[in-house]
């Protein structure tokens, strides 16, 4: 049996018809054609598929699309401003060379934003521990950690101003 699902993705109302077993990441990539969200492991380990559901980081390979029906989802495509200005976390990844091949990057950035939202003053050890569920096989993490440490207070300052 197929289910008609509706959710808000990157600020837009979307709908679709899915089998119950369709994963959220499949719905995002194959139905909505938002291919920024990646699948690295499909076993809840690597974090390439991290998106925000109702504002919180979740692994979209381990959630059913039907579970996300009625919820609000943000993917990597939803971070930059409409005019293309990068989100402070994206800008910091660029600035600090927080990526090489880029495969893990969408998940890293989405997790980085989640960490910054929860703990704007996190220190390096905390950021490293918070990244436990996101695996990068290229960078050695140094640039990723620096980017998050740089962007987190900037995001907090921007929020305070708004």
């Amino acid at each position, binding site marked *: 049996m197929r289910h008609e699902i509706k959710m808000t993705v990157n600020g837009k109302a979307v709908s679709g018809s899915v089998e*119950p*077993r369709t994963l959220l990441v499949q719905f995002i990539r194959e139905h909505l054609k938002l291919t920024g969200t990646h699948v690295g492991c499909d076993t809840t380990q690597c974090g390439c598929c991290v998106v925000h559901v109702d504002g919180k*980081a979740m692994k979209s390979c*381990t959630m059913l699309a039907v*579970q996300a029906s009625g919820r609000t989802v943000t993917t990597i495509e939803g971070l930059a401003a409409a005019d293309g200005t990068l989100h402070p976390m994206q800008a910091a990844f660029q600035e600090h060379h927080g990526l090489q091949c880029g495969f893990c990057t969408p998940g890293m950035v989405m997790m980085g934003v989640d960490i910054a939202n929860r703990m704007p003053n996190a220190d390096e050890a905390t950021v490293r521990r918070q990244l436990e*569920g996101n695996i990068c096989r290229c960078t050695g993490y140094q640039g990723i950690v620096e980017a998050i440490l740089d962007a987190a207070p900037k995001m907090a300052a921007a929020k305070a101003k708004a």
Partner: protein
Amino acid sequence: MKNFNYHRPSDAGAASALVSKSEEPRLLAGGMSLLPSMKLRLVAPSDIVDLGDISALKGIKVEGKEVYVGAMTCHADVAANADVKRVLPALAELADGIGDPAVRHRGTIGGSIANADPAACYPSAVVGLDATVETNKRKIPADQFFVGLFTTALEPGEIVTGVRFKAPDKAKYMKLRHPASGFAVVGVMIAKYGSNVRVAVTGAGPSVFRVPAMEKALSANFSAKALDGITIPDADLMTDIHFSAEYRANAVVVMAKRGVTAIA
């Protein structure tokens, strides 16, 4: 993953009715254990009853020394709850050490204890903190809840509604993390209630267990020294490619000593 029928009821009564009508039903909580095992086709339910919309199963209530955690409360919410941090910090720390932030945003206490993974953290809290598991049918004392490897006292279709903990004077959860998975190679919950001490061990055996010799020694003298000479028989402990039963037996004592030292 094999296909299934999907239901998302808004109260526990409806969930229970759906379960009794279905051929091979499974409750779905955070999905952090169930969905991976469905992908591997280790389980192939005919019907998934998603508890995600049952708001009555979510939330934390702290009254005096009693800490009630609703079954559908995620690990991140337990870890961040100010009242839990104040009254029962060991529980908040335990929840904060489960998996990673994305897992903690979805995984729930009800799912964790119903699953009864031998390497899961929460079972040591349920048993060590003398909790009562509440279901839609009854109240189950901690010492009767965990029966064996991935096995609990729950009847088919019985729904955990919440867990009621008794906050001790002090408690500490010490976990030897598996370096890859983050699960407990060995996890020890030490809890001191007046002159009465409980010690519950997860990760080491097929199911959580108490260590009466340690409880007796620590009740008489709450110091790491009191544990000198106590050994854990390794006959019933788990062996895998990473850690032998002998290693785990030793780690139980090491973790217990570190836990006691941290709060003595």
